[in-house]
């Protein structure tokens, strides 16, 4: 099991709600996981599973006034981020926890130069001297593989390609050597060959700087390649969690199995029928009582009307299914 001193970020029983016209909806419902130093934790799930809301909760960037952390704790550096005053959260955000977003064009300010935006991070957290901040910005751009950074700092986001923009966003996230970086679908908007560049860059920077990465994605391929541990989310709850090798080799939740079986594999039989998960993800306003996967689950029994607890399958590997012991071998 995880040594306690290894944990840099711990999310316990997080509950995040949104006030909507349809009443209060619970987007994240009792999610717990810990992030270890220098390791990569993947959070995977389909749209509406709560993976991005979990990230926004950690960063305290929930849309206001609708979004609210209604319960639980997020421990980071000896403090609980849930109760931290906004002024102290400003220091954590961008300083000790960095964030990489999916769409670099919206993450960057279109009317400011790259240099101004990046040196702003240093001015907020590291230095008061704008000349020094600009020099730090140039160094950081070089580190993320941007050619001729002295020229690039004078350019605007629209003058860069998608891959280059994402490098700038990564530079901003890593500028203050954060202990944790949260990357929300960092390569989803990019082409395959550019995705390979960015994933390689993130791994190289992690080896060098030692930060923990929380990688949020819908792509099981990216999870398999990048992560040490993985959390599989479904409709706001954790379905299964564990070391990445165990989750892929012996998934113990019918949802994880369904996901892994339904993706077309490049080495698979062409034009064969893909196995599917019946139906679709329930909306937050009409979640079933008990296990949220039950209406799509081929192994459903009456007992699934009660919420299954996360049970330990083996060290570090836990699943929320009443019937995990009875699932047929794969």
């Amino acid at each position, binding site marked *: 099991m995880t040594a306690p001193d290894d944990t840099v970020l711990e999310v316990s029983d997080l509950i995040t709600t949104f006030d909507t016209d349809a009443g209060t909806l619970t987007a994240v419902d009792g999610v717990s996981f810990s992030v270890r130093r220098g390791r990569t934790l993947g959070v995977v799930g389909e749209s509406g599973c709560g993976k991005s809301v979990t990230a926004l909760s950690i960063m305290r960037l929930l849309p206001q006034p609708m979004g609210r952390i209604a319960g639980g704790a997020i421990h980071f550096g000896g403090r609980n981020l849930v109760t931290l005053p906004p002024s102290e959260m400003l220091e954590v955000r961008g300083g000790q926890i960095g964030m990489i977003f999916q769409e670099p064009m919206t993450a960057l300010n279109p009317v400011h130069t790259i240099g101004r935006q990046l040196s702003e991070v240093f001015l907020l957290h590291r230095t008061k001297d704008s000349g020094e901040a600009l020099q730090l910005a140039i160094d950081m751009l070089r580190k993320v593989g941007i050619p001729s950074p002295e020229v690039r700092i004078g350019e605007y986001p629209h003058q860069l390609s998608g891959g280059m923009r994402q490098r700038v966003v990564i530079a901003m996230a890593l500028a203050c050597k954060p202990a944790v970086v949260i990357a929300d679908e960092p390569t989803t908007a990019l082409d395959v*060959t550019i995705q*390979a560049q960015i994933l390689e860059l993130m791994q190289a920077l992690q080896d060098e700087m030692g930060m923990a990465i929380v990688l949020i994605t819908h792509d099981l391929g990216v999870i*398999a390649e990048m992560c040490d541990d993985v959390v599989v989310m479904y409709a706001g709850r954790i379905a299964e969690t564990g070391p990445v090798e165990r989750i892929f*080799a012996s998934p113990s939740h019918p949802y994880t199995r369904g996901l892994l079986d339904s993706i*077309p594999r490049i080495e698979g039989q062409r*034009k064969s029928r*893909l196995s599917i998960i019946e139906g*679709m993800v329930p909306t937050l306003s009409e979640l079933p009582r008990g296990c949220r996967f039950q209406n799509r689950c081929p192994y459903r029994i009456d007992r699934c009307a009660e919420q299954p607890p996360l049970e330990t399958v083996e060290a570090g590997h836990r699943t929320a299914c009443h019937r995990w012991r009875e699932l047929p071998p794969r």
Partner: protein
Amino acid sequence: MSAIPAMPVPDPSPPAGAAGMTPLLEVRDLRMHFPVREGLFLRSRASCKAVDGVNLSVYPGETVGLVGESGCGKSTLGKSIVRLHQPTAGQIFFEGIDLATLNAAQMKPRRRHLQMVFQDPVESLNARHTVGDTLEEPFAIHGIGDRSWRRQRALELLGKVGLPADAAGRFPFQFSGGQRQRIGIARAIALEPKLIVCDEPVSALDVSIQSQVLNLLLELQREMGLSYVFIAHNLAVVKHVSDRIAIMYLGRIVEFAAADAIYRDPRHPYTRALISAIPRPDPAFRKQRIVLPGDVPSPIHPPSGCPFHPRCPHATERCRIEVPLLRVPPGTSNHTVACHYDLPWENPPPAGG
């Protein structure tokens, strides 16, 4: 800017067993150049060569996959095939008739055989029409049947794509992404077309919904004998549905072969890099990624010689000067590649899953 010579043979990589068969669709030296207007008077300063000399054939019942990164021209090629663009040059033979020469009136009767499924069903469906109206519309446009017959057909189409009959009275926003894509497919098959161009049909869908829609497309193909041109950036998805795959780069096909051969025995350095860059959903498979440097160049100012040379790990002086033509590499059949060299493949992925 010298024109790229047309290939000596129109169809260098027919599917195995296609001898004697007539292709349903045959694209010859297709070019689609868009003017780039700049400056105060919006003069045309340059042209964006989105598709620059493509030859492609599709046989009855066959799926040809088009793969490439953004800006490679795959969507433009797809739209040109169904004549949503008027091509700059080249021919599009569909059942023996060159669509590129037809005007709108002449094109209309052909359109029922030539349909398109788009990536985003939200944008391609009329938000103010009920699903029933949307599905009846193709029959009305082509003057087929009376109202009650059309209504009946709309209900049959819904059943065919796995939607309940009461969907006919609802509006697109009342459906999920996967259901909307089913509606888009129902409309595309309404007039019993022979060819459907599918442009990234599952890219916007969740993993568990993606497989449902891919299964539906495969079922409809078997049932109706459809041919597909299947455009996507996800090589694993394309390989699953395709018989043959064309890899595109900067407006040209750089490799064209049977789907299994493209994966097992890719010959172009770009194809190899693409295959190696796909993240595999298998942590035991720690492969060596071929990471290409740089970005895809702009089709407005394409590089000289081989368009891939600035990113190619094997580029030589010859690649900077001479445009490689599609040729059949040694040891293959029904396989074409546009590379000057026959390079050994250093990091082939392991066989099997």
